[in-house]
C-alpha cells in the first residue's frame, strides 16, 4: 500500500520505514459464525421479540 505522508510531518524515508514497521497491521484471519455476527450485528435478537414469544409459550402451555 502506498501511503501519502503529509509533508508537514517532516519524516525521513528511514523514519517512515521504522514507523510503518511499528504501527503497521495485516489481516491474519477471517472471523465467522457468531463471532462475525457479533461484529456486524446480523443476528442480534431483540429482547422484545423474545419476551413476546415467551408469553406465547406461557399462554399455550
Amino acid at each position, binding site marked *: *500500500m502506498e*501511503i*501519502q*505522508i*503529509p509533508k508537514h*510531518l*517532516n*519524516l525521513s524515508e528511514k*523514519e*517512515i520505514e*521504522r*514507523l*510503518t514497521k*511499528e*504501527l*503497521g*497491521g*495485516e*489481516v*491474519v*484471519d*477471517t*472471523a*465467522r*459464525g*457468531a*463471532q*462475525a*455476527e*457479533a*461484529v*456486524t*450485528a*446480523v*443476528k*442480534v*435478537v*431483540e*429482547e*422484545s*421479540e*423474545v419476551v*413476546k*414469544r*415467551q*408469553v*406465547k*409459550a406461557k*399462554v*399455550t*402451555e
Partner: protein
Amino acid sequence: MTDAGSPFGPAVPDSASQAFACSQGDLRVRQSPQQFSVCLITALTIADFVDLTATVSARQNVGAQIGVFTLAAVLRQHGYAVDVVNLDEYFLDYLKPEMGGPTSGLTESETVEPTSLLAFVLKRLSTFSPDVFGLSSICSSYPLTLRLARELKKINPDVPVVLGGPQASVVDVATMNAFLYVDAVVRGEADESLPIVLDRLRRRASLDNIAGVTFRRGHDVVRNPNGPVVEDLDRVPLPAFDLDAKLKDRDGIHLEIGRGCPFACTFCSTNDFFRRNFRLKSTGQTIAEMRSIKQQYGITYFSMIHDMYTVNRKKVVEFCDALLACGEEYTWGCSARTDCIDDELIGLMAKAGCHGIFFGIETGSARLQKEINKKLDLEEAWARIKCGDANGVQMAVALITGFPDETRDDLRDTIHFFIESLRYDHAEPQLSLLAPLAATPIYENHKAALVFDDIFSDMSHQGWRQDREDLELIKLHPDVFPNFYAVPMKWLDRSYVKDVHDFITYLATWFRWLPVGILQDSGDLLEVFDDWKQWLADRRASRPAPDTGIAPYYTHREFRREFIEFVRTWYCDHRAAAPAAVMALADAEGWGTATRKAPPPKEVEEVDELDTGAFAYLRKPTTIIKVGVDYKQLVAALRSKRNLSQVPIRDITLAFRAATAGRVDVWQISPLSGALLDKCDGTRSVEQIAAEFADAHPGVDGIPPAKVAMFGLVLLQRQGFIGLSRNVLQQTAGPDEASEVVGRFVPPPQLSANQQPWPVPATAA
C-alpha cells in the same frame, strides 16, 4: 398411455366397476380434468427458533420442496387446475405480528389468546375449494400434516385427502389404520401414479391396481404393489415455479438433477423412496432448465437436488464441461460422498460454479463407519475436505451421534472430527442426534425397543420444543412417528450424548479457534467436556443457573460467557499445556470489548487529508481486543497443528472489522495502533488524539510521540479503519454495551429440519 394420459408409462388396468370407497359424500363425477382442481400442500420444513429473526435466518431461501412443484407441473400436463400451498411461507407469515399470529396483540396485553398455527393455516385455506387435497410429508412435521389433514376432512368431508412424500410413503399402512380421515397414500415417486389417482377420484372409481398406492376398501387398507421409478427423468417437466408466490424474493432455487442413491446406509430412509435406483437428468436437459429459469426469473444459483450426485464421475465431468463451454455464469451446490469424488473432480466442479457440497460423513469412528454400512475411509474424507477448502467450496460436514452400538471412543472420534473440520475455512460441521427413521435398517432392527425419552433428534425437531398436540399423537402412534422415539444406546447414556451434542454444536456456533485450540491442547475433548460439567456443577452449588428463558442453555449467550470463564479460570490453570495460547483464544473470541458501530454516512462531512482539526471516527463496525500471543502465528499453528507452546508471547492488538458481504477480517495491529484506534470515536480531533497519545506513550527511536500518532492515523486511514470528518460524530459503544452487541442466542447451524445440499450463499444472490 395410461388412462390418465400419463406420459410416463404403460396403462395400469382400471377397476372402474368398484366405486372409490373413501368418500362417503355425494361427489359429482367430473367430466374432464379441467373441472377438477387439486390443492397440493407442502410439508413444513422450517423449525421454530423462538424468535422471528432467528427463525427466518435459520432457513434456506430457495423455495419449497421441489417434489410438490414438480407434481404440480405433471398434473397441469394432464389438464388439472393446481394450487400449491407452501406451508413454510404460511409459517413465516404466522410469526409476523401483523398477520395475527402468536405475537399479535401481545405488545398491548399478555392475555390475548394467540392463534394456533393450525388455525392460522386453516383460515387461509378456507379460500380454497379444491376437489382433492394432496399433502406432502416429512418426518419432522408429520404430526402437523396429519392434524391439518384431520381438520381439512372435518371442514370438507367430501373432499378426498391424499398424502404423499417421504414420511407417508414409508408409514402408509400404519397411518391409514390410525387416521381414518386419510383416504389414500401415494407412495414413492408419484409422477406417474398421482395423475392416475386423480383420474380415478374424478370418475369416482376405485384405486385398485394403481401401482404405489395405498387406499381404503371399506374398512380395509389395501396396499398396491410398488410402482416403477421414473427411468427417464428428462421427461419430467420443469417444476411449476410460477406457483411459488415468493419466487421473486428467492436467493436461489432448488433444481432436481437426478434421483436415487445406490448406497445402503443403515440410518437412511431415502433408499425406500427412490429404491436405490441411481438416475440423472441428461446434461443437456439440466442446462436447458437452468437457462430457462435464468431467463424467466433471473435466478442463477441452483441448489441441485440429488441424494448422491457424484456417483457417475463421467456424467459430472460432462455437466461441468458443458457449463464451462456454455459461457454462462451459474453457481450451484450438491451432495456427494467423499469416496465418490476426487481432487481433480472437485477442482473442475469449483471451476464450473460449484459453490457448496454437502458431505455426509456420519461418524468420525472408523469402526462405526463399517457398522452403519457407510464405509468411508476417513483419511480419504479429510483429503477431500482439504481439497474442497483449497478450491473455495463451502462444505457441510454432516455427522451423527446416538447410534445404538456407539461407544465413548466412537463418540470422541466423532466430536473430534467435528471440531477438527473447523480448521478449514470452508467447512461447516453439523452434528445430529440419530433418529430411527421409518423403514431404515436401524429402525427395523430396533423397533421393538424404541423408547420415548423426551430427547428429540434434531432431525425430528420443530424448533426448541415440540407442540403439545403433536406430542399426544406421537405418544399414541410410535409406528407412525418413530423418528420422535429413540433407539436405546448400549454403552452410553443418551442424556449424556445429547448434552455432548448440544455442547459441541454450540461451541462451534459461538466460537471457532477456541474449541480447535482446546482439542489440540488437551487431545481429548470429551474429557474437557466432563471437566466443564464438573466446573459448572460446582458453580451452580453457589450460584443459580442463569435465566435463559425459553432458549436452551447452550444456545444462549450465558453459555458463551460461562464457558469463557471456565477456560480462563479453570482450564488454563489446571489442564492447559499451552495456557498462553488458549488464553489468547479465549480473549480473542470472548469479545471483551464492545463493537463500535459506524456512523450513518449522511452524518459524516468527510475530509480526505489529515487535518488536525478533523474528527477521527471508525469507518466500519470494529471490535478491538488485546491478546498476549502473536495471533498470526497462533492461527497458523492451529491450521497446521503445530505446537501451541511455541507461539511467541507478545502483546498484540486485534481488530475485528466488518469487510464486505458479511465478511469480518481479523487484523493484527501493534499496541500503538490499537491505542490510536481506541481514541477514534468521532468526538476527538486529530490534534486531541495526538496530544492524548503523546501523554501516554514515548516516541519511537527518537521520533516524537505526536508525530508517531499522526503517522499512525494516516496509516489507519489508508487501511480503511478510520475516516476523518469536519463535524463531531457519536460512536458510542463502551464496555457496558458489550452485552447488547452479542445476540442473546443463536440458532443451530443446521438450516432446516430436512437435509439439503449446501444452501445459497449470501453473495450468490
